């Protein structure tokens, strides 16, 4: 469960103070499917980064699975990030010199999982994401949709409880985007908390809960009208 309590995030831009997050409070239940929408600069990416422990709130508290995170040091944050949170990005952020298999394996390597245990875990994920015969390809030998699916596999390999997607379809054509959305929605169906940041209404409408932001504030927060 994710609980934000009066979270603010200030940025200093020149001599101006920008409130990227202004007194945001919310609770996200495990297994929920959220979309966060809003215009550029509304603070939606900052919210995602705070939830993903990539960024710290300036004030307020953030509790992840009953653990207060604002007091954690950098190493503890890295450790929590590795085990509880998976990220996917608009521009995929695959390591270009590594094969798909190695990209997916990387979090396991960093976490010190033994090689013998790594192989089957990576292989199973690649199979699940229909990338079985793509393991030895480099990112530049893969299509955009395939790259994002490799990124999803990498995000899932540590079996996190939360999957954060920042414009996951932003760099993809419609068909590939639909594939990627189907893939992450399937993960959500198996119980993972899915949070998608987007400005594409078609993507955002698929979620069960919708959050709209403007100027660092949550201006709207409602459940889907249509039942999935």
């Amino acid at each position, binding site marked *: 469960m994710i609980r934000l309590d009066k979270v603010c995030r200030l940025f200093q831009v020149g001599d101006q103070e920008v409130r990227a997050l202004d007194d945001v409070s919310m609770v996200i239940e495990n297994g929920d499917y959220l979309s966060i929408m809003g215009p550029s600069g509304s603070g939606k990416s900052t919210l995602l980064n705070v939830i993903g422990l*990539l960024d710290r709130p300036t004030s307020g508290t953030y509790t992840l699975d009953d653990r207060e995170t604002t007091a954690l040091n950098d190493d503890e944050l*890295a*450790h929590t990030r590795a085990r509880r949170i998976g990220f996917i990005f608009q521009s995929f952020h695959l*390591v270009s*010199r590594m094969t798909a298999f190695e990209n997916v394996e*990387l*979090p396991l*390597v960093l976490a010190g999982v033994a090689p013998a245990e790594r192989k089957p875990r990576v292989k199973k994920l690649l199979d699940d994401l229909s990338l079985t015969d793509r393991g030895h390809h480099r990112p530049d030998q893969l299509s955009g949709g395939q790259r994002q699916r490799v990124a999803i596999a*990498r995000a899932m390999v540590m079996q996190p409880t939360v999957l954060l997607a920042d414009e996951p379809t932003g760099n993809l054509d419609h068909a590939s985007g639909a594939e990627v959305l189907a893939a992450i929605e399937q993960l959500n169906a198996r119980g993972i908390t899915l949070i998608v940041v987007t400005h594409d209404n078609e993507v955002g409408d698929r979620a069960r809960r919708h959050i709209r932001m403007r100027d660092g504030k949550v201006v709207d927060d409602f459940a889907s009208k249509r039942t999935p």
Partner: protein
Amino acid sequence: MSLADLLKLAIDSILRARMRSSMLLLAMGIGVAAVIVLTGLGEAARRYVAGEFQVLGTRLIIVIPGRSETTGIQPGLFSGETPRDLTLGDAQSLRAIPDVERVAPLIIGAAPISARGREREVPVLGTTADYIGIQTTEVTEGQFLPPGEIDVDRAICVIGSNVRHELFGDGPAVGESLRIGERRFRVVGVLANQGRSIGFDTQELVIVPVSAAQALFNSGSLFRVLVQTRSRDSMLRIRDRVIAVIKARHQGEEDVTVITQDALLATFDRIFTALTLTLAGIASISLGVAGILVMNVMLVAVSQRTAEIGLLKAIGATRRQVLSIFLAEALLLSMAGAVVGIAVGQAASWFVRKLYPALPLAAPLWAYVLAVTTALVSGIVFGMLPARRAARLDPVEALSGRK
């Protein structure tokens, strides 16, 4: 993260980013090779000059009988005494002085020599086996006077190359006999074509054992005694000891003149210092160039990877893990670069040696140590600095590539 995984990550990264790695290897290689070749050149030049000075006999002390005064009358004339002769005994006693390497007594005179009916007048030098080590002259045929008791009179001689040709033509000379004055001598060796002893042209010389020369010229007194010291540093001390020893043997009379090449030594020291400074300058410039080359390539290489560092942090790498990945890469690359540099440097040195055998190009050990240390240190420092900065960056900023 296990060490094996860390090394695998680093090696994969080096092998797959071929352009970056080869640029870095090139920079390191050029840097290290430049240090090795340039210091090798400097060292070769220094040794060449040092060798030339050695020819001039800088470790030489010359003992001349008689006290030479630039002013006044010789004390001997005044008291009715003549200066004592310098004897073989004096020369032998000088051998006992510590740090004296060689002592060669000299007797010089002219005598008619003849062989196979040809006769001519040549300078005859009486000395000992030590003489060949003091002078730069070499023996091309046979051998020089054998070492042994210096007061044993043996009828053997070593002849200069001109004497050899004039007496024996193209036929064998070693083992032949010739007549010096009234006595027959067996030729044991021939001196090389080149080489100059102080004052004599060795091509025209006949060298006989000092005792034989004493008998030949019917004189017990020596013309000179050459003393060679083990090192240049001990020369002044040994010079004083030589005077003291002779004085003790001559009833407290200081009746010899001892010459060291002081002016020569001072010049030599100045040139030596200048050369050493030049060498240090060359080495430090090439080290600096090497360091800057490595720095640039490393800075560019790591800065390009800010996004990768951000990603590593996003998927759970700690700052320490990010740093150790970059450290391992920098370390492996720097070591490979140092090896490449040494290989290139060695190859270049070998090539120069083949082209100019007179210039023995070989870098001193300290140049290798310094070059490799500089490559490693600059590779690691400038590989780590940007990585440290990137690892400290917020992953958000690193990922967006804004910084």
